């Protein structure tokens, strides 16, 4: 398993497949607002709505990577703004550990992204999808890391 980016060969016509976990109250609403505002962003992400980012078991992210997601986005309320008071803080605490696990398992940690986007931050949500998509596009398909 290699971390070196030089060896990655990005196949032609390949499009990154991104799974995006969004909390219902902030980021899912922000994604809705992006649509209502006709903000255009890459169509690579598939949004999976959860009530709160606190619902997200690190296992959900690892499993997605294992099943072949090229990138995983987690988008929630800003710290302090959680609809459920502190669910996002619980996720943030798990995230620190998760990043280590991902790195140690040999997967490029740049494949996962944690962001905060409120219900009014449609542009921030859309930019997050765009940045992760472009980042993952550079890294290449996750299958290339399964050596």
């Amino acid at each position, binding site marked *: 398993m290699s971390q070196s980016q030089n060896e990655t060969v990005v196949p032609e016509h390949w499009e990154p497949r991104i799974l995006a976990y969004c909390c219902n109250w902030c980021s899912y609403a922000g994604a809705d607002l992006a*649509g209502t505002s006709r903000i*255009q962003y890459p169509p690579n992400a598939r949004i999976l709505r959860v009530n709160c980012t606190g619902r997200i078991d690190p296992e959900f992210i690892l499993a997605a990577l294992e099943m072949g997601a090229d990138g995983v986005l987690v988008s929630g309320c800003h710290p302090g703004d959680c609809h459920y*008071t502190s669910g996002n803080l619980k996720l943030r605490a798990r995230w620190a550990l998760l990043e280590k696990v991902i790195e140690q398992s040999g997967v490029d940690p740049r494949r996962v992204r944690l962001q905060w986007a409120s219900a009014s931050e449609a542009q921030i949500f859309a930019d997050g999808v765009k940045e992760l998509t472009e980042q993952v596009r550079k890294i290449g398909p996750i299958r290339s890391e399964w050596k």
Partner: protein
Amino acid sequence: MMGDKVEPRIGVFVCHCGHNIAGVVDVAAVAKMAMSLPYVVFSTDYMFMCADAGQQLIRDKVKELNLNRVVVASCSPRMHEPTFRRVVEESGLNRYLFDQVNLREQVSWCHMRQPKEATEKAMDLVRMSVARAAQLQSLPIKSVNVTPRTLVVGGGIAGLRASLDIAERGFEVVLVERLPELGGHVRKWTHLFPADESGAQIIGPLVKDVEKHRSIKVMQNSEVVEFGGYVGNFTAKIKNHETGRTKSVDVGAVIMATGFEPFRPFGYYGYGESPDIITLAELQELPPRADLLRPSDGKKVNKLAFIGCVGSREAGKQGHEHCSRHCCSAVAKAASDLKDKVGEVMILYQDIRTYGRGHEELYRLARSKFVIYSRFPKDSKPDVQVTANGITMRWYDVLSGDYLEFEPDLLVLASAMVPPGDIAETAKMFGLTRSADGFFNPEHIKLAPLTTHTAGVMIAGAAQAAKNASESVVDASGAAAKAVSLMARGQVEIESTVSHVIPELCSSCRTCVTACPYGAISMDKSREPAVALVTEAKCHGCGTCAAACPSNAIIMYHSTDDQIMAMVEAFLCTPAQVEGGTA
């Protein structure tokens, strides 16, 4: 929860939403693809699923084909999930046996120029939803009692009107006002449009009625310091700043009428550099008298100037992008009133928006009194210099195409309406979200402007957006009606999406007890060893406990691990993908 052992029979309904979805996404292809998915026995595309005919189609197909799961691929579930849940229920199914796919806000509207990719995304999302639908379980429909009392936060014109409306309908109100006096901003204002009454004349009788009403308990000098509970059953701790005492009240509904703050425009047009440069709010608060005197030396004002849109309508500046809506009419009113007391009145504006009933007449009145309106370009704001000799304004007048100068004795800045400085803390306490302008977010801007995503918490007046007094009163009566209908029913259905501990799997580690933000999980000591137990009434359904449990002993109903993983798998492990195809 309830055993749904029968094999799933899923119906998929793909909505065109007129041209909104079908204009980008190949809805027929999506519906056709859905037919090939496991457990799907019916799939179609249809013009408008939310319309009566669309709803009837669901009911008919459920009966005809004995469907036991329904997937609608249409707009955001934040819009029509309640509609379709009701339809599913009318078809004889449990409302939780429904899942919605967001093909409009999250597909067609944000990938308008990529129909092929949008269609692929739509197919993936439908595939995910169908996989989830197969895992859905019926949940019991639960009702709770509603405490017949409403908390109104804020004693301005909106809070007062809402309190009176509720009390007159026979319910109790607790009205909390931070300041010693009721009446909010309106009480202090001298030029209130469109009528010729002052703020005090308007608000006086309202305050009196509120204070003498026996169903309204007014708590002045007080603030809500703690807030918890759920629809119908909230508890607020209210602290009196004078006595330092805290009182706890139980309420069934809440109306947030926390209003606004006039923006203090430091850095704009010399504000703060001269006592003779004031905001419109400060002008309104000058004690009424025969002459208009300037604050610096008490001399009579002969030349008066206004500048509009100060801190409003600034594209790209967060919290200042909105139109403050009251200022054009308020300036027209103040200018025509004051024209009788001063020699010259000059109004510098970008645009004039006197949109309400009776407002245009004020603009015409100002014009007929020879108030001078001069338009400046948006990208070249007037220049204001403060010297020992006074104030000098210089600007480009659009209509004459020339630079003009004016030396007013008093300059009034029509500054923006912005949210109160502590709105972030208030939003957090009541679980509310905020819009880009900083004010509270309504549940839906068109369909539900007075309710919020926290069931049982309403918003009224300038707490929701920049508004004038008349609009705030309309809101207040509307929000009061919402609160009253909730209390009059006496009972309200609550979400069954709570978490549940499987005692046999619990390892008594207490991780969930500390993870729960609501203190809804405790240890059931009647068991040996004690295991975790969820108090359902306290559970808000965030699922943090389920994610934290190291023993997988917690089920988060309607958001189970199986349901989530089924979606992930449906997206990533479709046969086409395994063969190396790409999404």
